């Protein structure tokens, strides 16, 4: 019985493995699931879900599977398949009720209105008379008493508390956790590590101890060295706002991974292109700016410079004085990036835009030329390449 469920989880995008299914079966064999659906749900969740970001997905699939609705794997609140709704509605409406719907403008009208409200609504709703949800008088939702209502989900289970548990979808807002996928990025960033010994001497230096002991006529002379730390220094400049909004997530992942991986990490934001000022706090970008010259003076040239940006803008923003979209810049951005590159010879530009689109944007070509072709896509493979260049 569980094998179709298992495949449904996998189709739904969860990385559930056979080991985990076997664990669940073993637990059931030992009688842990007991008699109640609730217990089974909790047990299945504890053994099959390994990340809180997947909890919501699991709840939906569990609900769908155990209600026999097999084709609703899509996000239930966002993309309800119209066929399914129609099917459900037709199943549940009596002749009399259908006549009433006709009175209201017909099925098409109802579906149209439903689609509109689904677009407006983005959270679960209970009570009330407009939103789609439960126990209300809106025409859409469950447990309602509007005769022309479309009942959505949970039919025939009103008196079983079990269904509600996963139907609550309490884990929704965990679905977009930033930490997703950073492991891969961290593994890639590791290659940039350069170890150096700094700080307190707390490790035994075996070779030196043997050497010194031998010179000391066999009397023990213990030598200690500091532990090795990642000593690579990184200066990260991130493009923010505007066309970068589409790439916020991948940039957050990159940033979050870099922040934990490097001890010496400095970051600054820019908008579209670098000019005479950069800033650290995007909310206070107008008041708290850091002059780019100060940055080049403060951080020595052994810092590795990484730009993250889509390099998509008007070419004027790069080559002309006053080209910036935000302020009057006395000198063109191209001059500023040259200054930065002169100070930091080890530099790359990571571009979240797909590589095949680069050639269609003149500004991307321009930035690539300025960077001496050191532009890489913000993917794991691109990151690998970029790090090779930085070495």
């Amino acid at each position, binding site marked *: 019985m569980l094998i179709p469920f298992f495949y449904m989880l996998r189709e739904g995008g969860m990385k559930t493995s056979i080991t985990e299914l076997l664990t669940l079966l073993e637990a059931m064999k030992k009688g*842990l699931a007991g008699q109640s659906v*609730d*217990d089974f749900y909790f047990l299945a969740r*504890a053994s099959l879900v390994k*990340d809180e970001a997947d909890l919501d997905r699991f709840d939906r699939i569990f609900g769908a599977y155990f209600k026999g609705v097999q084709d609703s794997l899509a996000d239930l609140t966002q993309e309800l398949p119209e066929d399914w709704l129609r099917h459900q509605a037709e199943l549940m409406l009596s002749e009399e009720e259908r006549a009433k719907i006709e009175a209201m403008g017909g099925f098409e009208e109802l579906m149209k209105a439903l689609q509109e409200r689904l677009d407006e609504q983005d959270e679960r709703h209970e009570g009330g008379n407009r939103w789609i949800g439960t126990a209300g008088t809106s025409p859409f939702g469950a447990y309602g008493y509007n005769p022309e209502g479309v009942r959505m989900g949970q039919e025939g289970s009103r008196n079983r508390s079990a269904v509600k548990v996963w139907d609550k979808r309490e884990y929704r807002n965990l679905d977009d956790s930033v930490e997703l996928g950073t*492991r891969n990025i961290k593994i890639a960033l590791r290659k940039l590590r350069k170890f150096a010994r700094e700080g307190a001497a707390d490790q035994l230096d075996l070779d030196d101890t043997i050497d010194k002991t031998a010179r000391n006529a066999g009397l023990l002379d213990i030598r200690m060295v500091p532990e090795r730390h990642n000593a690579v220094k990184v200066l990260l400049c991130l493009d923010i706002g505007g066309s970068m909004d589409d790439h916020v997530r991948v940039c957050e992942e990159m940033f979050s991974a870099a922040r934990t991986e490097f001890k010496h990490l400095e970051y600054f934001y820019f908008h579209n292109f670098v000019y005479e000022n950069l800033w650290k706090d995007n909310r206070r970008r107008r008041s708290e700016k850091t002059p780019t010259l100060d940055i080049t003076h403060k951080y020595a040239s052994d810092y590795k410079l990484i730009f993250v940006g889509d390099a998509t803008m008007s070419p004027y923003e790069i080559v002309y004085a006053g080209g910036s979209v935000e302020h009057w810049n006395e000198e063109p951005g191209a001059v500023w990036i040259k200054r930065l590159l002169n100070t930091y010879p080890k530099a790359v530009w990571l571009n979240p835009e797909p590589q095949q689109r680069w050639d269609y944007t003149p500004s991307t070509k321009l930035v690539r030329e300025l960077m001496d072709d050191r532009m890489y896509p913000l993917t794991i493979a691109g990151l690998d390449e970029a790090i090779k260049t930085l070495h």
Partner: protein
Amino acid sequence: MAEDRFSGTSSYIATDDLMMAVNAAVTLERPILVKGEPGTGKTQLAIEVASALGRPLHEWHIKSTTKAQQGLYEYDAVARLRDSQLGDDRVHDIGNYIVRGKVWEAFESEQQPVLLIDEIDKADIEFPNDLLQELDRMEFFVYETKQLVKARHRPIIVITSNNEKELPDAFLRRCFFHYIKFPDKDTMARIVDVHFPKLKKDLLREALEAFYKVRDVRGLKKKPSTSELLDWIKLLLAEDIPPEALRGSDSRKAIPPLHGALLKNEQDVHLFEQLVFLDRRTNPQ
């Protein structure tokens, strides 16, 4: 095994799903990984499981410098070198210089123990991978003495994580998983009740009201959690604050008294003050 069921203790309220996850881990002798907001009682869980089931508890707290090997054993080469210099007899047996780690201690336990691996995400990214074999087979090999250490009783392993690093899939496959979600008001009232049994009903109601109001403020950097609520109630009791003082809506000072226990950074306090100010302007008394 069947009688070993965990159902919370007199000082720890466990929800049904948490109980199920713990019981599954106990019955199948697999590790359980617990995640959740800071302050929702992840570490406490292991302590309570041990006391509820009457098992010895071994705690292994992970730091950023902890290596997996340290949990198994360490070979103290320096001590042996020193002893050889001083002509100590102990030097002939290498076993004298093997220092046992927490995992070994747990494996040697007479009774099935509870092993807490606290904040596994603090360690290096490879740390969980280095423990796969040990957690799976519950055995490891000591190279210095050519000895295989096998668990007498497979310990109940509770692992906590604050999600600072993502854990490898191979590691996750071997664990049960539970995410402690933030308790709803009813559960919270029960939790407060086991900690402060004599708390007056109206103070509890007002405190919870104020607490959830603070938690609902959008944009807080650090939302107050259960442990902060408990600290705050403790403070309220110590200062003998009357319930009326907590009612933000009609008092001039709408910030809850002693808010330092709930809001832990000055940006949050500032944000909260601003919101209260705006609220008072839009709804004047």
